């Protein structure tokens, strides 16, 4: 159905090709997962399927990409609209109309589908993706998961034979991700649609995949094959496979269910051991206090009476569904919004009344799209500007950056950095002014496993320096590894506030894969298991 025939691609002004001699075929009706480290060219590969690369990106593409028998070299993306449905990383950026129903109909209008057929298909898709309740809602009022489903629906109404999804769940909370993936698997199984999907959260998708394309990103050839076979040799793997490698299972389990069946011996070996107990956060001074905070957007309530305390040296995870009010809370803490009711105090002052210069000394926020913080040409220029903004000694920001991630080329453009490096740069800019409280909004979006590990190390370092960290995230693995406390927001209210391990493990939605595999014991990640097994084997040797 999709055929890449010796495809190589070089972006304009790039020295090295992004894709080199990519050659594979995805047969009809398969769900094919594209894996690779950040910056390896996954998105480029996906966008080449309907010709957006190179037609919109510029650059030089050699070789032939064929979809449903049509070559992208011969027809522009718009002529492939009835064959390929493409959903990008940020679904909201691609919305054309204002209301859900119109958005679903848009592609059919372009294809010239008869009005009565249009109405029927819109109804079908509304039902298929569970969007019925939302049909008249303005797109701007939807939550992330709803937006993602609408985006998928908006290409599905054309009746495409191929669906291309770029990171469909990375911005979503676990429940919303489940919704989207359930809808996608239904499409594959019921309608025989071919799906090509790229995803960092392998643990969410890999169990549904029929085949995996591994894009190494270092110039070596692309590997395609059976998921467990390809993944056992891949550097990017989900936690279950990592556990499988540790325990030496074969064949590799891809789902929690498979792993659980294979894990009986492992659980027995672990039985005498206790999982590490949660680290007690040093009961430091009160850094931030929120009481009775309310916020509304027009007629929508984002926060209703939130109470929250953060102490020095504490890492607090803020969890909850998309649209639960996490970002709104962070914006209040950093003074971007003034409270409508209730008070917000950070280091004794109300941030929204402080000048920007004063605020950054007490609290700093790394926003979800951290690129907006960066607007200079080089990393060095960003660091110099940050020093100037905060009246810091020259070289402060640079020193912080080197401590977080050593070895970033000072001359490179912030846009050319990998997601992880860019996050470190944004974090360094915020940390230069030595704020007592650091806020991070969805820092793991777009990070691969290795980058996540580095993020965890960075956060631990901050906490050990006595800084407080408040982390809004969906990523339970990160929460399990680093957070002392977890707060769950729902419908603008705090519904849970307690030790991270307890909050996370006892929720069927939030529990990490390892915890599910090794239940009822509360092992959170592979590192804990590895460390425990080491103590077990240590004395016997």
């Amino acid at each position: 159905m999709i055929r890449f025939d010796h495809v190589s691609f070089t972006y304009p002004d790039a020295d090295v090709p992004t894709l080199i001699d990519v050659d594979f075929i995805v047969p009809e009706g398969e769900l094919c997962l594209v894996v690779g480290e950040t910056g390896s060219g996954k998105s480029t590969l996906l966008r080449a399927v309907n010709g957006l690369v190179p037609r919109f990106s510029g650059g030089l593409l050699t070789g032939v990409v064929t979809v449903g028998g049509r070559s992208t070299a011969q027809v522009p993306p718009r002529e492939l609209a009835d064959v390929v449905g493409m959903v990008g990383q940020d679904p909201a950026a691609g919305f054309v109309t204002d209301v859900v129903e119109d958005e679903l109909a848009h592609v059919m209008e372009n294809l010239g589908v008869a009005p009565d057929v249009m109405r029927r298909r819109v109804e079908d898709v509304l039902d298929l993706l569970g969007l019925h309740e939302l049909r008249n809602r303005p797109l701007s009022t939807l939550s992330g998961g709803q937006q993602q489903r609408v985006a998928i629906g908006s290409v599905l109404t054309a009746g495409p034979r191929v669906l291309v999804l770029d990171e469909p769940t990375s911005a979503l909370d676990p429940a919303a991700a489940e919704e989207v993936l359930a809808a996608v698997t239904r499409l594959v199984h019921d309608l025989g649609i071919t799906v090509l999907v790229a995803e960092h959260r392998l643990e969410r998708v890999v169990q549904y995949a029929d085949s995996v394309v591994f894009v190494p990103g270092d110039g070596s050839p692309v590997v395609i094959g059976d998921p467990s076979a390809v993944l056992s040799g891949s550097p990017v793997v989900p936690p279950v496979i990592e556990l499988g490698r540790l325990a030496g299972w074969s064949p590799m389990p891809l789902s929690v269910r498979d792993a659980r069946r294979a894990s009986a011996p492992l659980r027995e070996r672990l039985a005498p051991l206790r999982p590490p107990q949660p680290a007690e956060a040093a009961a430091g001074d009160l850094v931030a206090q929120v009481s009775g905070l309310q916020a509304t957007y027009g007629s929508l309530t984002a926060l209703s009476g939130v109470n929250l305390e953060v102490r020095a040296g504490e890492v607090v995870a803020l969890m909850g569904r998309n649209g639960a009010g996490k970002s709104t809370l962070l914006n209040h803490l950093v003074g971007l919004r003034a409270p409508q009711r209730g008070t917000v105090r950070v280091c004794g002052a109300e941030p929204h009344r402080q000048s920007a210069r004063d605020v950054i000394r007490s609290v700093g926020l790394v926003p979800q799209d951290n690129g907006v913080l960066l607007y200079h040409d080089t990393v060095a220029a960003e660091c110099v500007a940050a020093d100037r903004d905060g009246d810091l000694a020259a070289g402060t920001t640079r020193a912080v950056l080197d401590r977080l991630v050593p070895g970033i080329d000072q001359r490179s453009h912030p846009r050319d950095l990998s997601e992880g490096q860019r996050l470190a740069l944004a974090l360094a800019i915020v940390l230069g002014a030595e704020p007592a409280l650091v806020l991070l909004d969805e820092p793991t979006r777009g990070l691969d496993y290795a980058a996540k590990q580095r993020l965890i190390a960075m956060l631990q370092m901050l906490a050990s320096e006595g800084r407080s960290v408040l982390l809004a995230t969906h990523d339970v693995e990160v929460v399990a590894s680093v957070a002392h406390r977890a707060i769950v927001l729902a419908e603008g209210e705090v519904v849970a506030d307690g030790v991270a391990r307890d909050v996370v493990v006892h929720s069927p939605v939030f529990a990490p894969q390892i915890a599910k595999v090794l239940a009822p014991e509360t092992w959170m990640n592979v590192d804990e298991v590895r460390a425990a097994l080491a103590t077990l084997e240590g004395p016997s040797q």
Partner: protein
Amino acid sequence: MTVLHQQSAARRRREARPRRMLHPGAWWIWATTLAAAALRTTNPLLLGLIVAVVAFVVASRRTDAPWSRSFGSFLRIGAFVITIRVVFQMLFGVRLDGTTLFTLPSVTLPSWAAGVSLGGPVTLEALVGAAYQGLRLAVVIACFGAASSLCSPYRMLRALPSALYEAGVAITVALTFAPQAMIASRQVRDARRLRGRAERGPRAWVGSAMPVLEGALERSVALAASMDARGYGRRGAISVRTRRGVSMLMLIGLGAVAVGSYGLLDESAPSILRMPPFAFGAVALALALYLSGRGAERTRYRADRWLAPEWLVSLSGLAALGAMVVAGRHGAALDPSIYPLAVPALVPVPAIGIAVAMLPAWCAPRPPALASLETITHFEVAA
């Protein structure tokens, strides 16, 4: 009591009925005719009236969507334009006699640059004249701002004739750039605060111009890519030969219309370059539109309808323009004298015309609100 009940029941029924949006074309006709009316005058009273009327209509009929909040920004851009115009007048403007307010150091330019002056005495007349011209431009900007806050750019894209899809990407970027820039500027403003920079003042403007423009362009291109991937501008079954023919025809038509309109504006142009190319170009364009419209199979899910309110809205704009043109023909003081400086007069005919353009504040349908959309959904489900 009973009467009250009946009234409120009637009102509830009325509000439960799904509200529709006015056809985007009607808003654009209204806004462009008002802008055209503004271009025919430098009378600050009439220009002020136009802005006030436009602001009133926007406040009465805008939606809750993000782009609808952009009108204020357009007004700010207008104020900026006036300031720039006045400052430039001070620095490089034509010097006028009259009441000297202050004198800037002047530079005497060599004779080949005669006619250009730098610095020198700044007179009240010169500043007033510059302010009038700046105001006119600001009003035109406000009119377009009104159009883009009253109807989303996407609905405008949908309403375009299909032949223009040929230039799909360019048009998408052109039409969505301004609203995207508004969103991007809000983002950049927040980011500046997060970095601890001054949020106001000229330095903030200078510092955020590039990120805002880059961000807006990126968003517009992303949108264009998404639209293209979903078949926008698709030609369907039309043959390659016809497509090329239509493209050629459009190109020739546009060229001819350009030559013709230049000829029409420049009265010194030979008559052969005036009406004939214009007419030829118009015919070629119409033919191209027809051919490509026939080729592109497009359908409408829920077509925007053109009903009485649409007629009223567009005619009210035309009334303002018409009044302005008629008044101008009859020698009304549309351009108040600068030298000698005279008090501008409130010319009645255009003023009434502009007042008529306020009609949409009542006769355009009220757009659906976020909250009411939910009630509509529930109502429909219940029914």
